């Protein structure tokens, strides 16, 4: 069992190789392509989130990294070492399964000690390490209990301890918080982040919950239909989603079709001749038409006769709902049927259904999607 080896794989140029590297990794089930030529590098000590709707191929990707699913094509490297065909028990990664997969016939102690026992760590060391690890996940004193006597959140932490105790170089988590209720999920998000900081291991966290991904991850990859559509920090992805899918999956957006008038100044025109401006760098070169987006919270409403710099669309408030921290409006403009606007309830005036207003936002808050 001592076959678990660490190979100091270095890149030819001497730089530190990424913790996980996928190169055109593809997985087909029969005719169906679940993962479609994914390439990505995940650096050491990252909290990396794989975010996407159900069925987009997140679990399959994770299972290929863990070795539970064979790749149809492509190469998987862990710290520079090609592990593509290698069995799971010979990879220095550990997994926290969605269903936790705790061994029901073993005590909490033996569950956590399982990986160490397979590697012939001696009893005294196992004892101290299990105790330390249970302390880390705040389950000290539960050693002798069986998994089924613990609550969902506690089982989740045992699963985490059972994986982390092996000091894997990469930890894979498949929707680890999916089975918990909202309050516990919020707590565990913070807890997981704390543990990741403490142990300094690369976490790859699969989730379909955009808020969870944004709360925890340094880097988010948004998956859609087996491909990675967008990768970056939460802010980068949110502020410039680049595709219509990402814009809609992360938060809400107003999307509109526009013709480019002058790419160098960023001037575009909507239907009915409404002119808007976009940061010039964002307009694709050589295109005539683009799709623009703007987040509801970036838009302000002002009285229709106000003189305002920036992008402005005149319209009619067709719905206004006060929800405490903010007021949500739906505005009918000629160019866009229903513009969603979210206004913080500061001291400025609120509008009511039927008011004629101007919806304004800054040109740099306009993004372009394909």
């Amino acid at each position: 069992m001592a076959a678990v080896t660490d190979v100091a794989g270095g890149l030819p140029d001497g730089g530190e190789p990424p913790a996980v590297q996928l190169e055109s990794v593809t997985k087909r089930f029969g005719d169906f392509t679940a993962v479609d030529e994914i390439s990505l590098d995940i650096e050491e000590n990252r909290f990396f989130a794989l975010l996407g709707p159900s069925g987009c191929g997140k679990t399959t990707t994770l299972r290929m990294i863990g070795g539970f699913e064979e790749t149809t094509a492509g190469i998987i490297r862990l710290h520079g070492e090609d592990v593509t065909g290698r069995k799971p028990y010979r990879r220095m990664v550990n997994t926290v399964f969605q269903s936790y997969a705790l061994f029901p016939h073993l005590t909490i102690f033996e569950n956590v000690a399982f990986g160490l026992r397979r590697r012939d760590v001696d009893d005294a060391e196992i004892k101290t390490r299990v105790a330390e690890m249970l302390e880390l996940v705040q389950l000290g004193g539960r050693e002798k209990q069986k998994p089924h006597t613990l609550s969902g959140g506690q089982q989740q932490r045992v699963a985490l301890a059972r994986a982390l105790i092996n000091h894997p170089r990469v930890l894979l988590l498949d929707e680890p918080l999916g089975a918990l209720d909202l309050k516990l999920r919020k707590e565990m998000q913070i807890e997981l982040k704390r543990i990741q900081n403490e142990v300094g291991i690369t976490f790859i966290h699969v989730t379909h919950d955009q808020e969870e991904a944004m709360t925890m991850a340094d880097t988010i990859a948004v998956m859609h239909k087996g491909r990675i559509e967008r990768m970056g920090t939460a802010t980068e992805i949110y502020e410039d989603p680049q595709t219509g899918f990402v814009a809609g999956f992360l938060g809400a957006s107003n999307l509109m079709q526009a013709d480019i008038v002058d790419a160098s100044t960023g001037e575009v025109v909507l239907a009915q001749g409404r002119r808007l401006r976009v940061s010039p760098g964002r307009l694709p070169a050589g295109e005539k038409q683009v799709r623009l987006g703007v987040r509801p919270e970036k838009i302000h409403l002002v009285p229709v006769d106000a003189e305002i710099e920036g992008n402005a669309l005149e319209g009619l408030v067709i719905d206004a709902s006060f929800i405490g921290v903010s007021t949500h409006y739906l505005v009918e403009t000629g160019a866009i049927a229903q513009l969603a606007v979210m206004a913080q309830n500061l001291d400025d005036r609120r509008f009511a259904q039927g008011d004629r207003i101007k919806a304004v936002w800054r040109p740099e808050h306009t993004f372009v999607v394909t």
Partner: protein
Amino acid sequence: MSAVGREVSSSAPTAAWRRKLVPYGLLLPGGLWLIIFFVVPMLRLVSVSLQTGIYPRYRFAWAWSNYAELVTNYGGQAVNSLVYAFLATAIAFLIAYPLAYFIAFRGGRWKNFLLVMLLMPFLMPFLLRTLSWKIILADHGLLVDLLKSVHLLGEDGRLLATGVAVVAGIVYNFLAFMTLPIYVSLEKIDRSLVEAANDLYASPAVAFRKVTFPLSRPGVVAGTLLTFIPAVGDYVNAVLLGTPQQFMIGNVIQSRFLVVLDYPVAAALSFTLMIVTVLLIIPYVRAAGTEDLVA
């Protein structure tokens, strides 16, 4: 107001009573069944086992000597029973476990078909099934000739009318009772547990030893008991596939009850068989520790 209060107070005791009686009422049919068809016959069996006399006139006489006959006259058959039942259980387990494992883990969409195939032989009457073993094991049958040609069997060796034939018959007849419980317990195992073991550096063999097998133990215990218990008392296989040399305690009981009409000894043997079986099973079930597994 007061009328309502009186009504409540007067009906309260009866309602409480009724609630207390309901569980006993529910137990009644099963309890009666147990008393009429188990407790009473068992007491009757014990009382018959202590009678003496000559058919048809037996009388109760604390005749403990009936029990001594097992050792004095039927020791050989008793040993045959235990040895054959033990061997048959062990062999059936060795065949059934891989079979059940294959169907549960590799059966895929053929699972139900394979299970039906497993049960198919049982559509044939018990006697016919056992008799067909006579043909398979016959002295100049294919199997014997084959074993002779590879020198696994001597020139004048035979299978039929030996302990081998009796054990083979028992294994065959009880194989499904061994396979089905094991299959059920394997089928229930969450596949992600095996993956978790692999993830934690257990090779497939170690994952089997540490996770799959322990989790299938309830099925193994059930299967071995369902095979061993009827096998110890079996007599048909010894009659059809063996000779009086291979007779088991079941054969003795059968002939005492139905041929010689020596009811007291037959009863004493039956009762002893039961007690011995129970005494063997209790430590086995304890050692297998199935109570740990019940979630």
